[in-house]
C-alpha cells in the first residue's frame, strides 16, 4: 500500500501524456491532408524568424499592453514548468522537493517561480477584464460565437487555478516554510492557514499538489481542442512562415506549364499524347476545400489563437464588410477537423459529406471583399497568412467555376482583348505624351 500514490501518479501521468500523444498524431495527420509545399529552403533565415517572432515575441509587443502581459504569462508558463519536472520526480519516487538538496539555488529558483506565478495571475486577471469587462472590440466580433468566447475564458480560468494551486501548495508546506528559502510570496499566504492543524495543512498541501499536476495534464489535453494550441504550434508556424516579400503571391506551376504550351509555336495542339503517357487528371486550380490548401496553410489554421489582431486591421472588416481574416482561419480549422472526424469514422478514408470549405464555411461575399492589402499578414504575431487562403479560393472561383463578379469579368475581358483593365485601344497607350 505504501507505493499506491506512486503507482497512481504513474498511471495518471501515462494516461495524460498518452492521450495527448494520440491527439498530436491526429493533428499531424490532419495537417498532412494539405498539398505539398516546399519549405526546405533558407534554414538559417527560418530559424532566425522562429527565434525572433515565436521565442522572442517580437510582434506581440507592437501592442504594448497585451504584448508585455503576454510575455509575462509566456515566461511564467515556460519557467514554472521547470517545477513540473520536480513534481514528476517526487510523484514517481515518493520524494519531497527532491531539488531542494541544491540549497540556495533552489531557493532562488522557487522564489522566481513564486514571483512569476503571482505576475501571471495578475496578468491573466487583466486579460479576463479586457475580454469580459472592457469588451475589447476584437473579442466580440461576429465570428466570436459562444465556443470561441468560452474557450478564451476557460484558458484564463485554468491559468488562474493552476497558479493559485502552486502558491497554496507552497504556503501550506510546513517543511518548505520552515526552510524559509524562496517562499517570497507564499510566506505572506501562510498566515491565512495559521489556525489549522499540521495534519490539515498537510492534507491541503497534498491536495494542491495533486490538483496542480492533474490540472497541468488536463490543460495539456485541452490544447488539442482549443485555440490555445498556439503555445506549441507558434514555433513551427513561424519557422515555415512566408519569407518572400509580402506582396509576392505564388505563381501556380500547373498554370505555367499550360501557358508555356500555349505560347510555344512548336506545340501541336491536336497531337495525340505519346504512347504510354499517363492521361493524368489535371490538377484542380485553386481551393474549394481544405485538402486543396497547402499543409502550411493548414498548420496556420491550427496555430491561430483567435486574438483578432488581423481582423482589427482589415480594411474590409473595419468598414462593416463580412470578411474577417480571423474567421477565414477559424473556418479552415473547423472544416479540417470535420474532415478529420469523417476520416476517423470511415476507417481512415474520407467519405464525401457533400460539404466543403467554400460556401459551407466561407462565402464568396467574404472572399471578394479582400483588398489583398496584407494588413492581416502584417498584424499576425505568429506569421499566419490568411490572404494566401483567400487567393487560393478566388482562383478556384475564377478558374474552375468562372464565378467572378460581372465587373471583374469585364475587367479581365478587357485585359485579354486590349492589354488593359479598361476598354481602351492598345494603340492609344502612348497618347498621354502629347496631351
Amino acid at each position, binding site marked *: 500500500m505504501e507505493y499506491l500514490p506512486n503507482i497512481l501518479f504513474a498511471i495518471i501521468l501515462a494516461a495524460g501524456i498518452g492521450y495527448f500523444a494520440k491527439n498530436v498524431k491526429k493533428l499531424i495527420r490532419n495537417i498532412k491532408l494539405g498539398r505539398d509545399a516546399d519549405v526546405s529552403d533558407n534554414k538559417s533565415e527560418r530559424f532566425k524568424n522562429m527565434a525572433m517572432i515565436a521565442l522572442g515575441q517580437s510582434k506581440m509587443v507592437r501592442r504594448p499592453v497585451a504584448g508585455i502581459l503576454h510575455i509575462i504569462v509566456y515566461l511564467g508558463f515556460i519557467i514554472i514548468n521547470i517545477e513540473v519536472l520536480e513534481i514528476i520526480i517526487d510523484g514517481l519516487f515518493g520524494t519531497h522537493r527532491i531539488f531542494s538538496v541544491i540549497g540556495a539555488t533552489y531557493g532562488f529558483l522557487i522564489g522566481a517561480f513564486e514571483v512569476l506565478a503571482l505576475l501571471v495571475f495578475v496578468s491573466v486577471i487583466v486579460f479576463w477584464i479586457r475580454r469580459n469587462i472592457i469588451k475589447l472590440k476584437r473579442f466580440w466580433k461576429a465570428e466570436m460565437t459562444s465556443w470561441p468566447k468560452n474557450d478564451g475564458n476557460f484558458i484564463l480560468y485554468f491559468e488562474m487555478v493552476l497558479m493559485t494551486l502552486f502558491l497554496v501548495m507552497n504556503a501550506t508546506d510546513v517543511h518548505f516554510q520552515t526552510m524559509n528559502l524562496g517562499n517570497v510570496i507564499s510566506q505572506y499566504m501562510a498566515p491565512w492557514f495559521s489556525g489549522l492543524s499540521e495534519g490539515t495543512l498537510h492534507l491541503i498541501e497534498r491536495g494542491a499538489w495533486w490538483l496542480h499536476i492533474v490540472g497541468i495534464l488536463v490543460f495539456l489535453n485541452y490544447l488539442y481542442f482549443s485555440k490555445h494550441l498556439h503555445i506549441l504550434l507558434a514555433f513551427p508556424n513561424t519557422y515555415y512562415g512566408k519569407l518572400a516579400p509580402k506582396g509576392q503571391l505564388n505563381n501556380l506551376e500547373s498554370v*505555367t506549364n499550360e501557358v508555356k504550351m500555349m505560347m510555344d509555336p512548336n506545340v501541336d495542339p491536336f497531337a495525340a499524347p505519346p504512347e504510354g503517357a499517363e492521361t493524368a487528371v489535371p490538377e484542380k486550380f485553386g481551393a474549394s476545400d481544405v485538402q486543396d490548401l497547402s499543409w502550411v496553410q493548414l498548420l496556420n489554421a491550427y496555430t491561430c489563437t483567435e486574438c483578432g489582431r488581423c481582423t482589427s486591421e482589415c480594411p474590409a472588416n473595419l468598414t462593416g464588410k463580412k470578411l474577417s481574416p480571423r474567421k477565414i482561419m477559424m473556418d479552415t480549422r473547423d472544416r479540417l477537423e470535420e474532415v478529420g472526424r469523417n476520416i476517423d469514422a470511415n476507417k481512415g478514408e474520407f467519405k464525401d459529406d457533400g460539404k466543403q470549405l467554400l460556401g459551407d464555411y466561407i462565402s464568396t461575399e467574404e472572399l471578394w471583399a479582400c483588398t489583398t492589402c496584407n494588413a492581416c499578414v502584417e498584424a499576425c504575431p505568429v506569421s499566419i497568412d490568411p490572404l494566401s487562403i483567400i487567393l487560393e479560393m478566388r482562383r478556384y472561383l475564377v478558374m474552375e467555376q468562372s464565378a467572378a463578379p460581372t465587373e471583374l469579368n469585364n475587367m479581365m475581358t478587357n485585359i485579354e482583348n486590349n492589354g488593359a483593365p479598361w476598354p481602351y485601344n492598345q494603340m492609344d497607350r502612348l497618347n498621354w505624351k502629347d496631351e
Partner: protein
Amino acid sequence: MSEVLNVPTMAECMAEGRQPEILFWVGSAGSYDDRAKKITRAFVKILNKANVDFAVLGTEESSTGDVAKRAGNEFLFQMQAVTNIEILNAYEVKRIVTACPHSYNTLKNEYPQLGGNYEVLHHTQFINDLITSGRLKVESDNAFKGKRITFHDPCYLGRANDVYEAPRALLETLGVELVEMKRHRKTALCCGAGGAQMFKEPEKGDKDINILRTEDALKTNPNIIATGCPYCNTMMTDGVKVKEKEADISVLDVAELIANAQGE
C-alpha cells in the same frame, strides 16, 4: 497645350542602335486614366530635367497582369507576364522604373519565376537616387516649402515591399511639414482599391474604405495628401470630394510635388 515631353520608345532606341539606361514602365493606369496620366507626365518632366536616358515600351506595353492575378485569374496573369517578359527580354532590358506600386511589385517579385529578371525601382526610389547623385536639384525655396503634407503609404509599396523611406525622403527634400496619420507605414490602412477592388463595387458594409482612409488623412489637417500610387490617388481624391474638401486639400503624387516644385 502643355510643354513638349521627350519620350523615346524602346523600338526607336533599338532602331538607333542604343540601349537606354532605364525603361519607364508606365502601367495601364498611367497610360489611360486621366488623373494618372498627369502623374506620368510629371515623372517624365523630372526624367527630362535630369537628362535621364530612358525609354518606354509605348504601344508594346501591356497590363502586367497584377489585377488579374489578384482577382484569381492566374491564367490571364501568366499569359500577360510571359508576353511582357518576351518583349522586355528581346529589348535586353535590365532596369525598370515605374510610378505604379502594383506594377513594381509584380515586375519585381512575380516575374522572375517566369523568366523576367530585372532591377525594378519605384519612381520615388529613382528620383531619390537622382537627387543624392546630384543629377536632379530641388530648390530649397519651392512652392511646397512649409506646407502641411501627410503621406498615404500604398500597400504594394509599403507592407508588400517595405519601401517606406524613399517617398518620405523626397518630401523632406522639399522642406514640407510631414505629418503622419495614426495608421502609417506598417499599419497604414489600404485605400480600398487593391486586390481588383478598383474594378468592382464594394461588398455591402457601413462605409467605403476610401472614406475611412480619407478621414484618417483629414485628422492630420493637411494642405496636401501625398501618395505614390495612381489607384490610391483616385481613391483619396474621391474621398476628399465626398468630404467636400477639394477646395482646401489636394491629392498629389510625390512625383507631381517634385516636378511642380521645379518651376517651369
